[in-house]
């Protein structure tokens, strides 16, 4: 098997698995840049997957192939609203942000399965008729070598994820809104003095993270799993959180890390087809993202510094 053939297996698989992680990690960037820890990404993703599958099932008979795309929007909206709970608890009510995130995860898991059982009378949904399929990009996939590696057998959501990551980078680093958001996460009191509404910025940050995690969850459910069960989202949200940290709270870094984690995850599946990798026990590939994140935090792989005010509620007038 030639090197290029191997690449043509690995890269599409990596892009395919990474897309949900990229979206969710970008969401994490917004929340944490504004100073609110979001352990709840897992739950928000789960709620997005649930809403995505449910919406597709409800509208697929009338809307047809467009239904998964509409469902992704519905999931974005639903998780955005769901994240409001985390915002209210951790910003207005000054709850411990980690604890509130844990509660979000419990609540999303409980509520979505509760509703599934209520609606379908069983523990899982049916499979959706229309998925976001792997497809070849017209024209580009005909380019020799590159076309086969980067533009074939990849769902459109993967390209969308990368484009949005660039957009998020622009918003956070090149617009006044982004500057304000970062200021609120670094030094809320200074930001407040300059007339920025800290509470409002943080609410926006958390809710955008909900929107993105919702999209991530829906993309996972509609492109990879195809239905929703209690085990559909099991750890992808935490993996996205890890990607965000490994990417040093930077949108492009988060995207790169998410792509890398997607690559590592897909290797544990595609690895069997590839000589050399077959020899490595798959458990090493599976735990690699988590170990790497710890090393990154420790400083062995370039030190990751969190926003300064991350995790502390802002109380006006308190020194």
């Amino acid at each position, binding site marked *: 098997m030639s090197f290029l053939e191997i690449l043509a297996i690995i890269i599409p698989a990596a892009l395919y698995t990474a897309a949900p992680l990229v979206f969710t990690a970008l969401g994490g960037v917004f929340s944490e840049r504004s100073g609110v*820890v979001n*352990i709840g990404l897992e739950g928000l993703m789960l709620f997005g997957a649930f809403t995505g599958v449910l919406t597709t099932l409800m509208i697929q008979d009338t809307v047809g192939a467009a239904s998964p795309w509409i469902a992704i929007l519905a999931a974005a909206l639903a998780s955005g609203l769901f994240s409001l*709970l985390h915002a209210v*608890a951790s910003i207005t*009510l*000054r*709850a*411990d942000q*980690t*604890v*509130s995130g*844990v*509660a*979000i*995860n*419990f*609540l999303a*898991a*409980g*509520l979505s*399965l*509760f509703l599934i*059982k*209520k609606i379908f009378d069983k523990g899982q949904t049916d499979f959706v008729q229309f998925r976001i399929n792997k497809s070849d990009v017209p024209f580009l996939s005909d380019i020799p070598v590159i076309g086969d590696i980067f533009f074939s057998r990849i769902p459109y959501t993967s390209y969308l994820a990368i484009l949005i990551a660039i957009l998020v980078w622009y918003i956070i680093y090149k617009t006044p809104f982004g500057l304000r958001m970062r200021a609120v996460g670094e030094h809320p009191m200074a930001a407040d003095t300059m007339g920025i509404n800290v509470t409002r910025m943080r609410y926006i940050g958390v809710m955008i993270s909900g929107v993105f995690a919702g999209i991530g969850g829906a993309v996972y459910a509609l492109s990879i799993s195809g239905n929703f069960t209690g*085990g559909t989202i*099991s*750890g992808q949200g*935490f*993996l996205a*959180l*890890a990607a965000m*940290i490994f990417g040093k709270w930077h949108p492009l870094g988060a995207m790169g890390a998410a792509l890398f984690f997607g690559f590592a995850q897909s290797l544990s599946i595609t690895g069997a087809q590839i000589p050399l990798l077959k020899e490595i*026990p798959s*458990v090493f590939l*599976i*735990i690699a993202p*988590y*170990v790497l*994140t*710890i090393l990154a*935090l*420790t*400083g062995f792989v370039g030190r990751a510094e*969190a926003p300064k005010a991350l995790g502390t509620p802002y109380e006006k007038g308190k020194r």
Partner: protein
Amino acid sequence: MQKLLKNEKLFNTIVPVIAAVLGMVVGAIIMLLGNYDPVAGFSALFNGMFGSPKAVGETIRAASPLILAGLAVGFAFKAGLFNIGVEGQLLVGWLASVWVGYAFDLPTVLHIPVAILAAALAGGFWGLIPGFLKARFKVHEVIVTIMLNYVALYTTAALIKKYLYAGNEKSYKVDGTASLASPFLSSLTEGSRLHWGIVVAIIAAIIMWFIIEKTSLGYELRAVGINQHASMYAGMNVPRNIMMSMVISGAFAGTAGAMEGLGTFQNMTVLSAFTGTGFDGIAVALLGANNAFGIIIAAVLFGGLSTAAPQMNFDANVPSELIDIIIALIIFFVASSYLIRLILTRFSKEGK
């Protein structure tokens, strides 16, 4: 009411009670919205928790690992650390206890303590990693422990498959000499799986209370939890205290794993998802206000709720996930104690 708000200690005891009640109330509202009968639901829940000797036995059985998981979270909380990695520490403890229980040949008097000790050591080691990284490199323990949960999940599964595999996604059973199972307790509760683990859990709760309240180590841990800088200027070794608290916390969590390995299951399953006990431990510690006695009560409540969930499903047709929703709501309400304080203040002003 004024007096209540001024008395911190009393307020801190009353918040969990209010939160638990609020959680149940919202749970009832959800049942109503879902067209279920809340009265039937809650009476089925109560029956499933305490309705028969068997139900009581199962409630206590489920509470044993939860007590230990709650102690683990609570102990770290006391030192100002958030150990979200109880789940992972529990898994490595579980594996260690099963390994010692299966591979060693010892008389019961030694076998059980050695197997539990192995679980505590394994969990303690798994807690030492984030403790060390926090103390040495100032890495936030929340992220490290989350990552280590996954490392533990996949590594224990791979180790079982490679070294302890008995087929059917399960490890070998532990020897009878290492088993905490008790025909006596089982017959006492008419056939529940109640085992001696509850005794271990209560001893652990007493140990936690003793360390925190009666030793200088506990005093230092609490001081570090309240103010690291002040503790440092007072001459306390802050890094050492951080590591100690994570090790002891991990040891409690590992012992919780031994409850499953030596008690309830007698073996370990090749898991592909978390047991949830470690995360429930967070809820238990919060509801128990990080107090050893409070943790026991909270664990009995949550253990009972989760064992009674199928009963509620069976009798009143309410999906058992309602319990997860109630637990989540209780966490929200405890965490948002600011809200409860706000409401109480409002009430007391109106009453004047």
